């Protein structure tokens, strides 16, 4: 059945996953849970960020698309619906992918190395990256994927039972389930579990500022440093993402950045150099930047995987630009996965893929030269 196939594919891409204990409560089979006009069979909660307009329309104030949505229609994310002039989220507590992952998989390399992150996602996304690796959940509507009924407290209880010290809103796009992210963060903090988010950063300022203080860390995909790329490959815009990064820096939540390098589209040395210079100049040299390897998928299947040489060139450019922590991703075993002390050059955390081989950090500092290494270490 299509639903099961879609869910299983998502499970299959999750990498190092441990079985969830006990099994989570699944919703009834999704067949005929309807669509736009019939979405009333989905559990719905009034959205937190929108305004009402004339004639029953609403304007979403969650992401920069600012969708104006007529009655019985949904925003571009596909998970928010106008019902008679009130805007609802259809995905609060409706997780369609749930796994326990190593935190390195997000990737966070400066957040509790080697710890488990209880990771979750709902359906939907506010952009449409042609290279999306999780398109089978991000590009679908909630009624089109199988899902778990997973309210925040249940999720956090499950995280604790599974030995996770962190939660991670990830896989799809947490911006579209931002109320759920917020409520999970509140529950996680109360339970002594650190909430994290993996996002495209395409969000308006108000919802971002309201939720950021609840988070321990956020990873943002900076998909390119050209607005043209954002418009053509992502159906988004660059500037709002840069604004998000500036706000995160200002608020002081731990930030890591991922740049997926795609051959011919965003991997030119000039663009990488500009990107690194902007990060160093605007966010500071201590923000980790991960250059990761593209693999053909979804609508971008006519390009080859990123050559390792391109990644290594970006790695070098980043360090030349003054960034202290530049990493390479999707190249297991490459030295670019290791955390190196910017002071003495010693290897502090040796990694292979998502595994920690050795962690020499001493209370967040280099054991050799005692230089403090920024991050969330305890």
């Amino acid at each position, binding site marked *: 059945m*299509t*639903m099961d*196939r879609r869910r299983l594919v998502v499970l299959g891409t999750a990498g190092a996953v441990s079985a969830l204990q006990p099994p989570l409560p699944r919703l009834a089979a*999704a*067949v*005929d*849970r*309807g*669509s*736009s*006009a*019939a979405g009333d*069979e989905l559990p719905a909660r009034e959205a937190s960020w929108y305004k009402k307009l004339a*004639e*029953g*329309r609403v304007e979403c104030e969650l992401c920069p698309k600012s*969708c*104006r949505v*007529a*009655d*019985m*229609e*949904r*925003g*571009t*994310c*596909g998970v928010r619906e106008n019902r008679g002039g009130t805007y609802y989220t259809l995905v609060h507590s409706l997780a369609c992918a749930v796994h326990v992952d190593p935190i390195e998989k997000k990737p966070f390399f400066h957040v509790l190395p080697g710890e488990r992150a209880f990771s979750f996602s709902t359906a939907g996304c506010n952009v*449409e990256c*042609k290279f999306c690796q999780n*398109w089978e959940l991000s*590009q*679908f*509507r909630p*009624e*089109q994927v199988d899902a778990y009924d997973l309210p925040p407290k249940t999720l956090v209880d499950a995280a604790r039972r599974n030995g996770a010290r962190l939660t991670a809103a990830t896989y799809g796009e947490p911006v579209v389930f931002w109320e759920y992210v917020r409520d999970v963060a509140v529950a996680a903090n109360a339970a002594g579990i650190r909430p994290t988010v993996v996002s495209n950063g395409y969000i308006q300022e108000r919802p971002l500022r309201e939720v950021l203080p609840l988070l321990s860390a956020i990873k943002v995909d900076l998909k390119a440093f050209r607005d043209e790329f954002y418009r053509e490959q992502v*159906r988004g815009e660059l500037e709002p993402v840069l604004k998000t990064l500036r706000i995160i820096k200002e608020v002081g939540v731990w930030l890591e950045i991922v740049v997926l390098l795609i051959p011919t589209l965003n991997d030119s040395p000039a663009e990488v150099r500009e990107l690194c210079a902007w990060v160093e100049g605007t966010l500071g040299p201590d923000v980790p930047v991960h250059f990761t390897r593209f693999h053909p998928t*979804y*609508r971008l299947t006519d390009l080859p995987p990123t050559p390792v040489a391109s990644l290594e060139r970006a790695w070098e450019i980043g360090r030349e630009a003054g960034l202290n922590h530049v990493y390479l991703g999707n190249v297991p075993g490459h030295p670019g996965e290791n955390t190196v002390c910017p002071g003495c050059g010693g290897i502090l955390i040796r990694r292979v893929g998502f595994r920690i081989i050795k962690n020499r950090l001493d209370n967040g500092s280099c054991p050799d030269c005692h230089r403090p290494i920024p991050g969330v270490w305890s």
Partner: protein
Amino acid sequence: MEPETAHRAMDAALAASVGTETGQAAAAALFSRHDTVGIKLNCLAGKMLSPRVELVEALVDLVAAAGVDRRRIIVFERSDRELRRAGFTIREQGPPYRCIGTNNDFDPLPSSSGEIGSCFARLVSTTCTALVSLGVVKDHDLSGVSAGMKNWYGAIHNPNKYHDNGCDPYIVDVARHPFIRDKLRLTVLDGVVAQCHGGPAYRPGATFELGKVAASTDPVAADLWAWREIEAERARRGMPTLEAAGRPVRYLATAAKSGLGVADPEKLLLVTT
């Protein structure tokens, strides 16, 4: 609507659209007995503004009379639920025809056409060899008009992604995908009751009795007609044009440029019976 009235209207519309003496002759010209005919309805607005059952069944009867086995006539919408809400009975196998929601049975991989990349309903991509769009005549908050062409948004998994810029060129990109372009034989519009404002949802104060059923082998011309009717009603009510209201109907010009049909009012041949 009385079934006999529906049959007369559908018969006349089909005959006029193909230029035959009868609707049955038109159906015979459009469909072969080897076809599996998919009739896509637009039931988003519920029973008050969806294709009425009597008209759909009149069309089914004509297609069947043309030699298509009734088990190979599939009336469909996005979900069983929407069909039920519009007054249809779900019939997995028939008789007297199949009536089902696609219910998320999509192709496993997306297929691109212009700006869109979507998984198409397998009914459209695989099962059916001939397609009919059977929509309504209504205003749409973003595209201006929702009639026969936008109805195909209901055959893809991600329509919510394609509402920017008045749905232009996305409506056209969906309609010109080979799954649809190569199979589309007919567009029929239930204009017995139409809506000139507040769509796509049903808005009682904005509906009006147009009292017409339109059919065309040209999907662009059918939507052009719907647009004209909506504008005419808006003018009668002293309302601004769709363009002045901020939702110009851009997609029709794009459709014409793409070779899908005729969007020039001067070239629209209106046959009324």
